[in-house]
């Protein structure tokens, strides 16, 4: 070691334990005599300790969120419907129900949506008529698995039952929390966001308290109401039943 060899690469390699035995021994000897290099070693250690202070575990729920997004994307890639339409005849209704419960408990509310990955990504594909965030909610509602238990029609009196657990997701750069509610034979997806859901081009304004609009994407009716948060209800019901359905769901 020649005097004050401050070569950062060599010293860093020594500190990382990547020098061979002879090289490491030379540095050991050098550090005994060189105050400048010894100080650099101590500062390196202090800097590392300081940086390590910033470590934080991933927040609870992030794994569920990632799993949910990937499963949605996976279903979208397959371009197929959820087994709701493909359940093998020999499978019993109970099997379907058990399977659904397991998936719900796992936070795996996967759905089949062509090109859903594109709308989930910020800046992803977004048609002029249907904003990405709204499309993602509609697609999700289209493919929410359902055990379809017997029960009254949407206009019935059964209380809403939450299915699975809430999942946070971003679509088109908009963050939202998705919940699924079962009302009789209908399952409705409710997305809540702190930002108003963009109004699709062909949406219709709804008179009543606050700003609200309705729209339709395929078989899914959409009903958005804006208050302190924006709430988008998506369900496979006729447009005329949307407001009544939304009114029966718990407030966000």
């Amino acid at each position, binding site marked *: 070691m020649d005097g004050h060899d401050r070569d*950062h*690469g060599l*010293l*860093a*390699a020594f*500190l*990382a334990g*990547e020098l061979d035995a002879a090289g490491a021994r030379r540095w050991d000897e050098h550090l005994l005599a060189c105050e400048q290099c010894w*100080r*650099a070693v*101590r*500062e*390196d*250690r*202090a*800097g*590392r*300790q*300081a*940086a*390590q*202070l*910033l*470590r*934080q*575990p*991933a*927040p609870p729920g*992030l*794994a569920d*969120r*990632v*799993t949910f*997004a*990937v*499963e949605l*994307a*996976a279903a979208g*890639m*397959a371009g197929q419907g959820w087994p709701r339409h493909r359940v093998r005849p020999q499978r019993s209704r109970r099997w379907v129900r058990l399977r659904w419960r397991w998936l719900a408990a796992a936070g795996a509310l996967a759905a089949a949506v062509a090109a859903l*990955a594109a709308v*989930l*990504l*910020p*800046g992803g594909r977004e048609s002029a008529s249907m904003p990405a965030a709204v499309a993602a909610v509609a697609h999700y509602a289209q493919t929410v698995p359902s055990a379809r238990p017997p029960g009254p029609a949407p206009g019935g009196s059964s209380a809403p039952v939450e299915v699975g657990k809430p999942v*946070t*997701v*971003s679509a088109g*750069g908009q*963050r939202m929390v998705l919940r699924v509610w079962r009302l009789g034979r209908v399952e409705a997806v409710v997305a809540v966001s702190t930002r108003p859901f963009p109004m699709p081009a062909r949406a219709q304004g709804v008179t009543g308290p606050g700003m609200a609009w309705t729209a339709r994407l395929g078989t899914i009716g959409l009903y958005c109401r804006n208050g302190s948060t924006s709430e988008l209800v998506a369900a496979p019901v006729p447009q005329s039943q949307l407001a009544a359905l939304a009114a029966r769901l718990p407030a966000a």
Partner: protein
Amino acid sequence: MGADHRTFLEATLPHLDVVYQVARHAAGDGQDPEDLVQETYLRAYAAFGSWRGESTRAWLAAICLNAARSAARRRRRRPWEVAAMALEALPVARADGGEAARDVADVVIAGLDAQAVSRCLAVLPEPQRVCIVLMDMAGYTAAETAAVLGCPRGTVLARVHRGRLKLARLLVEAGVSDGRP
């Protein structure tokens, strides 16, 4: 696309913590780290079919950094570019008297404060900051960091060393200039 998502999740979810560390420091202003993690996993899933499986967490970190850069481009801003900030306000504990004569390492270790460290880290040059985030915070090895950044391992070691020295000295300067007892 179209790879088995269960295989993908089994291979990648164990690295969620380290991806989150990278995302926290790669996310630009206005970008939520959790959104960046979600985007990272969606991009990784899309590319999973062509992934050769060398180092999963290095692969994920590279995707995360690229996703952060893409997001920054979308916002017409560069990632990792943090405006120089006044260090006077940093809440680093100031050692009593004779500060100048004290060893930098002693002062830093005595006055560690996460918020101050975060602010000082933000003013480091990007290459040094990225190496520190990957190695010291996310726990990547020098070889993995080199693979993520596409540069020689020696370069990574030199950058992380320079970055640590600078970080330690910035923390001391912040404490000294704070003017508090």
